[in-house]
């Protein structure tokens, strides 16, 4: 009996659902481990349902030296660098988007080129340079480098969003006597609010999760952000309390996941790709 297109489509959908379910299960196992272990008093390395749920692990890690100080450090570091990135990117994107100049194209090409350089490779010379100019082990030095490493992509994204704001609206502000700076602040940026939010969240999320930069540029334990201090769970004592490690991982990861959900909801799917990977 020939199958009807409708029944064939249903069969296809079931097959696709089954395939996706398998992949989803495989991807979910490591995530399940961290959630279940954080609530388990006797957490080990394998995924298992705890005998009884407990918040003891969270209690144990929610202390100034384990959680609050590193998270505050992360916040200062990533918050400061994000502000710097977004401010500089917005300013730099403005002339690129609004005025025609022979310099625009070479500048944008350089930025695009820098966007995809492997930053990891730059860290050894950055370290050597920071030692010479006494920026090593300073928050401001790390913030500056963080901002510089995020800037190319941030400028690129910001420029693409800014291109979407019609110039006529701004010309009205100009005839009313506003300077370009005023029209950028009062007219252009408010109109591209979602775009600014995307650049901000993206920069913050990238830095919040970055391990290598603070690992190289900061030395004092008190200054370490969560991405580096998490290593302390694998301390010299040899034994690891996996439940507490899992609890800390959950606390440390939650802000970026929430931020992602916040922005992704508003802009749909692959927001981070806007303009960068148009095929």
């Amino acid at each position, binding site marked *: 009996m020939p199958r009807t297109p409708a029944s064939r489509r249903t069969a*296809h*959908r079931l097959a*696709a*659902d089954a395939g*996706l379910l398998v992949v*989803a299960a495989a*991807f979910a*196992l*490591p*995530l399940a*481990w961290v959630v279940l272990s954080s609530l388990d008093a006797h957490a080990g*390395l*394998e*995924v298992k349902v705890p005998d009884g749920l407990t918040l003891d692990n969270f209690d144990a890690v929610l202390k100034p030296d384990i959680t609050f100080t590193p998270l505050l450090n992360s916040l200062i570091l990533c918050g400061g660098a994000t502000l*710097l990135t977004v*401010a*500089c990117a917005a300013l730099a994107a*403005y*002339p690129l988007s609004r*005025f025609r*100049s022979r*310099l625009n*194209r070479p500048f944008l*090409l350089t930025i*695009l*080129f820098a966007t*995809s*350089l*492997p*930053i*990891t*490779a*730059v*860290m*050894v*010379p*950055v*370290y*050597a*340079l920071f030692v010479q100019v006494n920026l090593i082990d300073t928050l401001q030095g790390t913030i*500056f*480098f963080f901002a*510089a*490493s995020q800037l190319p992509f941030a400028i690129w994204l910001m420029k693409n969003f800014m291109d979407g704001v019609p110039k006529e609206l701004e010309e009205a502000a100009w005839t009313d006597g506003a300077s370009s700076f005023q029209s950028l602040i009062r007219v252009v940026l408010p109109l591209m609010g979602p775009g600014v939010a995307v650049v901000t969240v993206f920069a913050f999320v990238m830095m919040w*999760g*970055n391990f*290598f930069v603070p690992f190289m540029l900061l030395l004092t334990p008190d200054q370490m952000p*969560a*991405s580096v201090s998490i*290593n302390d769970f694998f301390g010299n004592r040899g034994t690891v309390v996996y439940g507490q490690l899992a609890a800390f*991982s959950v606390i440390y*990861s939650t802000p*970026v996941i929430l931020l*992602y959900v916040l922005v992704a909801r508003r802009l749909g*799917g*692959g927001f*981070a*790709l806007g303009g960068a*990977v148009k*095929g």
Partner: protein
Amino acid sequence: MTGKAAAPRRKGARRSLVRALPAAPAVVLLVLFLAGPIGYCAYIAFTDLQLTGQAHASFVGFDNFRAAFKDEAFLNAVWLTLVFTVLSSLVGQNTLGLALASLMQRASKPMRTLVGGIVITAWVLPEVVAGFLLYAFFRREGTLNAILDGLHLPSQNWLFTLPILAVSFANVWRGTAFSMLVYSAALNEIPKEITEAAEVDGAGGWRRMWHITLPMIRRSIGTNLMLNTLQTLSVFGLIWVMTRGGPGNRSQTLPLFMYEQAFQKSMIGYGTAVALLLLVVGSLFSLVYMRLLRTEV
């Protein structure tokens, strides 16, 4: 005559300078903290700079590079970087991302949301956390072995027996979301009529994929491959957390080798030469990527 022509030009130059002024802070940051270190990198790669016990570094020409290509540990790192990149980015992230995206086109909506949510969460997680999760997954007492035991299959200490495979899988777990998003966007742009016409003409799933879908999204494939490769070339934290490059140096890719030479062995000059090679390879990929995007700017 010339004066008349020059005046407006000078005025125009001053005007474009004033207009470009807002870009100054960004340019200063980029020059001081990104271009500066890269330039400095190109300089100290040719010196014998060390971390300790040395008054002046002296210029040694191509010695660092010659030493590298005779150094078995370096060649091992190049080989492992190649394996890591091909396995995790080219084969893993790229193919799985495309497979997930095309399955999602046909799947039911709740399933799309579920899979998208899980895969993207793995991507958004901080690098170190992802490293720990997969460390737990692959360890002797970990989840993978528990499952294998349940199926009566031989278990082993994956991080010891097949470390490079384990970290490659970890990178697939962490990075596939990006390809999935790129390909979902690309597949959504293919007009429905084209695939439906092919279906009516009797082309099966695989033939439609090979003759219609892939050619239509080839530019997305190109850019995605470039970006995946660049991303993978600079992975450090994930491998560091899972294996520290070991056991021995069996998962020591170039970034970890560079770190070991520069800091654990204090040979900044040598470590930087490796970094420079990594930058050059990255630049080549970056240039190809720009060629693929050339109509955009």
